[in-house]
C-alpha cells in the first residue's frame, strides 16, 4: 500500500514543481483550486471513513471468510456480490482474503464476484458519489456494477 502513496505523491510533487517553474501565477491558482476542492470534499470523506470504521468494528474480515467459504453456486455468487457491495475492504486486503476464502472451500466464481463488487460498488462512499454525480448516475453505476460482478463471476466460473 505504501508504494501507492509514494508513487502518487512523488508524481504530483514533480508536476507541481514543473508547474511552479513554468508559471508562478498559474501555480498559485492550482493551489487555490486544490484548497477549494478540499473544503468541498473533506466532509464527505470524513463521513465515508466513519462509516468504514464502524462497519469494520462489527464485521471483521475473518468473519466474512468463514461465512462465504461455505457458500456455493449461484446463490453463493449473489450473496458474495451483495456482501462485497456493502463492505469496504481495500483491494490490497481483498485478494489475500479471497484466496483464504477459496482455501476454505468457496469456488473461484464466488471469489471473482466478491472482488468485483467489493471494488466497484461503494456503499460507504455513496454520499460522496451522489455529491459529485447526482443520484441517478450513482444508482445506475452501482446497479450495473452489481450486474457486472455477477457476469464476470459466471464467465470466470465457466472458463476456469
Amino acid at each position: 500500500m505504501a508504494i501507492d502513496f509514494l508513487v502518487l505523491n512523488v508524481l504530483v510533487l514533480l508536476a507541481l514543481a514543473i508547474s511552479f517553474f513554468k508559471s508562478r501565477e498559474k501555480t498559485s491558482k492550482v493551489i487555490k483550486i486544490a484548497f477549494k476542492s478540499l473544503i468541498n470534499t473533506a466532509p464527505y470523506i470524513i463521513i465515508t471513513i466513519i462509516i468504514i470504521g464502524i462497519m469494520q468494528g462489527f464485521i471483521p474480515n475473518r468473519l466474512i471468510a468463514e461465512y462465504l467459504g461455505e457458500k456455493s453456486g449461484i446463490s453463493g455468487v449473489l450473496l458474495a456480490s451483495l456482501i462485497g457491495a456493502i463492505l469496504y475492504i481495500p483491494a490490497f486486503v481483498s485478494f489475500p482474503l479471497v484466496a483464504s476464502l477459496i482455501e476454505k472451500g468457496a469456488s473461484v466464481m464466488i471469489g471473482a464476484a466478491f472482488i468485483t463488487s467489493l471494488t466497484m460498488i461503494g456503499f460507504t462512499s455513496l454520499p460522496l458519489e451522489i455529491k459529485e454525480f447526482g443520484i441517478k448516475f450513482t444508482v445506475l453505476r452501482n446497479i450495473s456494477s452489481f450486474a457486472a460482478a455477477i457476469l464476470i463471476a459466471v464467465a470466470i466460473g465457466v472458463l476456469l
Partner: protein
Amino acid sequence: MKENKIIKGNNKSKIMKSYAGVLLFITLFIGVVTLFPERKEIIVNESVKYFIEMLLIIPAVMLSIGLFSVWVSKEQTSKYLGKESGLKGAAISIIIGSLPTGPLYMAFPIASSLLKKGASMLNIVVFLGACACLKIPQGIVELKFMGLEFMILRWSFSIILIILMGYIIERVIDVKKETLPQI
C-alpha cells in the same frame, strides 16, 4: 442537471450542510463507541488507519485536480476523452484509472473534474471502473494470490463490462454539450 449541481456545489449553505452532516456522523460514531465498549478498540483503530491513509493521499489528489484544471484545456480533454474519442478515449481512461490514485472514493472528485472539462460520460464510467478494479499496484497482489489465469480472465471481462456499462450509462444520462459548466 449537471450545471445545477455544480452551482449548488459552490453554494456556501450546501457546504455548511455537509459539515453539519460530519457533526452528525461524529455523534453517531461516539454513540456507537459508547454503546458497544467491546468494539471500541477495533472501530477506533480502523478509523484511525483509514484516516491516516486519507491524510497521505488527499493533498496529492486535490493538487492533481488543481493542476488538471489549470494546465489542461477543455479542448484537450474533449479531444482525448470527449464524445468523439472512441476506443482511444476509453483506452486512455483505463490507463489513467489504473494508475495508483488510492481508494475509489478519492476517484470521484477526480472524475467529476474530468467531466466538467468535457470528458464523455462513457469515459467517466470507464475511468471509475478502472480505478476500482483494474489498479496496477493491486495487480501484483492479485497475481500473487490468485494466479495469472484468474487475473487475465478477470481483467479482460472487467474491461469489456466497464466499457459496456459506460455505453449504457451514457445512453441513459445525456449530458448535453451546452449544459456543461464553464471553468
